[in-house]
């Protein structure tokens, strides 16, 4: 269970999150929508511990543990996964090497034995097949020369291999064509099928046609201003934020 209480975060001295409250129970899928500049990405980075996102007040507990006192890699070890809006290219590091190092780092943190090379190969091949990803892609350098869709698919492969208990997906659907969107949605639903928690950050309603959330929140000006079900997303799609009385780019 993720519990965020009165979270206030500054970036470069400017307050972006202004007292945000959110609780996600195990197995729930929450979607956060909101106008540009509302603080959606800031929320995901603050939960995962990126430098430069300074928490000035509030708490973030995951399964009762204080995430804010942990390094980003410890948060990952606790079962958190961040799907990036813009996955980073890392020339010179192959996907395979990266994923194996990541998986074994997490297993060491969790006190589990490292995965042997042979078993890792089997695991990653199986996951690539499930997600319809060309195994050749795994030999290439991390995200280097990948199209936008390939990068997002690669995030899904990483998520499947690392098998987090909570995934925060920051605009994973942006820039995807309809086929890629289905693959990404499929990856999310597989995780959901195992009773994992998911926080979807999205601009558009269309992902929610494939991954039906339990709750939809509207984030505006650093706070959650409205909570509902999938219907709320449909209303937003139809009327826009202004139509629901939420100021565009209120910050």
């Amino acid at each position, binding site marked *: 269970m993720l519990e965020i209480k009165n979270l206030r975060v500054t970036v470069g001295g400017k307050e972006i999150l202004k007292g945000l409250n959110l609780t996600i129970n195990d197995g729930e899928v929450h979607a956060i929508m909101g106008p540009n500049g509302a603080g959606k990405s800031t929320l995901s980075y603050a939960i*995962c*511990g*990126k*430098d430069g996102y300074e928490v000035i007040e509030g708490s973030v507990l995951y399964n009762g543990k204080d995430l804010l006192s942990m*390094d*980003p*890699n410890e*948060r*990952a*070890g606790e079962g958190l*996964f*961040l799907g*990036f809006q813009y*996955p*980073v290219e*890392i*020339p*010179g*590091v192959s996907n395979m*090497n*990266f994923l194996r*190092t*990541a*998986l074994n*780092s*997490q297993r060491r*943190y969790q006190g589990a034995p490292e995965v042997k090379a042979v078993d890792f190969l089997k695991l990653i091949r199986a996951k690539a097949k499930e997600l319809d990803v060309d195994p050749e892609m795994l030999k290439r350098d991390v995200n280097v020369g990948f199209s936008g869709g390939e990068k997002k698919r690669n995030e899904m492969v*990483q998520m499947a291999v*690392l098998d987090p208990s909570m995934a925060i997906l920051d605009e994973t659907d942006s820039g995807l064509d309809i086929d890629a969107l289905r693959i990404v949605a499929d990856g999310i639903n597989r995780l959901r099928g195992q009773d994992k928690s998911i926080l979807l950050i999205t601009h558009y309603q269309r992902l929610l046609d494939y991954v039906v959330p339990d709750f939809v929140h509207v984030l505006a000006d650093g706070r959650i201003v409205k909570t509902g079900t999938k219907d709320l997303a449909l209303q937003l799609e139809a009327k826009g934020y202004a139509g629901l009385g939420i100021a565009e780019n209120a910050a």
Partner: protein
Amino acid sequence: MTLKRYLETPEVGKNFEKRKAGFSGTDQGWLSDIRARAMDKFMAAGLPGPKVEEWKYTNLGFLARFLANENFKILKTGPDAAETKRLFDRAYMGNIAGSVVVFVNGYFNPALSSCPDEDGVKFSIFSENPEAFRQSLAEPKQATSLNNLNRAMVTDGYYLEISAQTTMPQPIQIIHLATSGSDGQSLHTRAKISLAAGAKAKVIESFMGPDGPQYWTHMISDVDAAEKAEFCYFQFQLQGKQAIHMTEMHSTLLEKAKFTHMNLQLGAEVSRSEIMNSLSGEYAEIDLRGAYFGRVKQSQDIFTRINHDKPHCQSNQLFRGVLDAGGKSAFQGKVIVARDAQKTNADQSNKNLLLSRKAEANAKPELLIYADDVKCSHGATVGELDRDQLFYLRSRGLDEAAAKELLVEAFVAEVFSDMPGGGDTVVLQQRFIEKTRGWLSKEVSS
């Protein structure tokens, strides 16, 4: 006060007189003559000072003080056998087949060596057969003051000659060890490598010593590759923390000859690697690559020169540097394209990664182009680790040290890309990665 261009070193002359009775080949009149004349030249010139452009980044004042050491001995005998064996076991790559030639404190060590003995290969050791070095000592490829000092004081060395159309089936490992007894010593070795037309050879040279003693390794190698010859050379510099390491390699390539040089600098307090090359036949190709690492008082200096004297030649330079707190580096790479060296293709790339704001990297590419139909490029960068890459890796579970390690490895891995040489290259790359990790895992002391 103005700095002198050259540093005076009166003590060196006195030390030379004291040492000379112990030199190799004292029974050879011609050699004693060469030594004496070279010493005179060195004494007249002294060591280059910081005002000499080529030595701008490595101040040799400390070397002048080192050379004034009263306690010079000739260490021909006596290095501790157990220590020597321990160092040898660390330096020797058992998973690479082929002969091995070992020098300890500047002298050939027959007990640990198994010299090449193959048809079409001539191999000699200086202390056993100085005559083989006569020509290269009498007509040095470069007559700088340091080169003269080396000729005057030469302790030992090796001579390798490959006959026409002969391919050495296996590489030769040359291992230079310094023991704790080398404190205060200068070890002046030489090599002469000749490949006749169509000959092929590979030499892997390692330098290693303990952290305690301060010693000066000073090695000069001459390489001649005739038409269509191919020479592949690796240098692993794993000297002790207080060591001064200097190597000069001078190559001359004739038509269609190929020379690949990989230069990996990880140890020593002060290191200078000079790689001087002349492309003296059409369609000759040279590929220089290297990586250097420096931290805490360490200074790494790479100095290259490529003379494109003939048309249709190709040169490629790829160097990567990693500097942590207190480390300093300089890359000075000069390419000179002669007036009639049309259709020259010359690339140069030097990138540096600073792991701390207290590190320093200097990059100085120089291109002198006198021909008008050439393709020459150069690029030099100094940067830091990418914060977004670091966070991406850490968000996947890698701790800070592991994330940095992966990124640094990726940064330097490029020097091995498209490296020819088959299975041996894989072994050497693996060793390089291990040494890189070893270097990274050591605590930074500031």
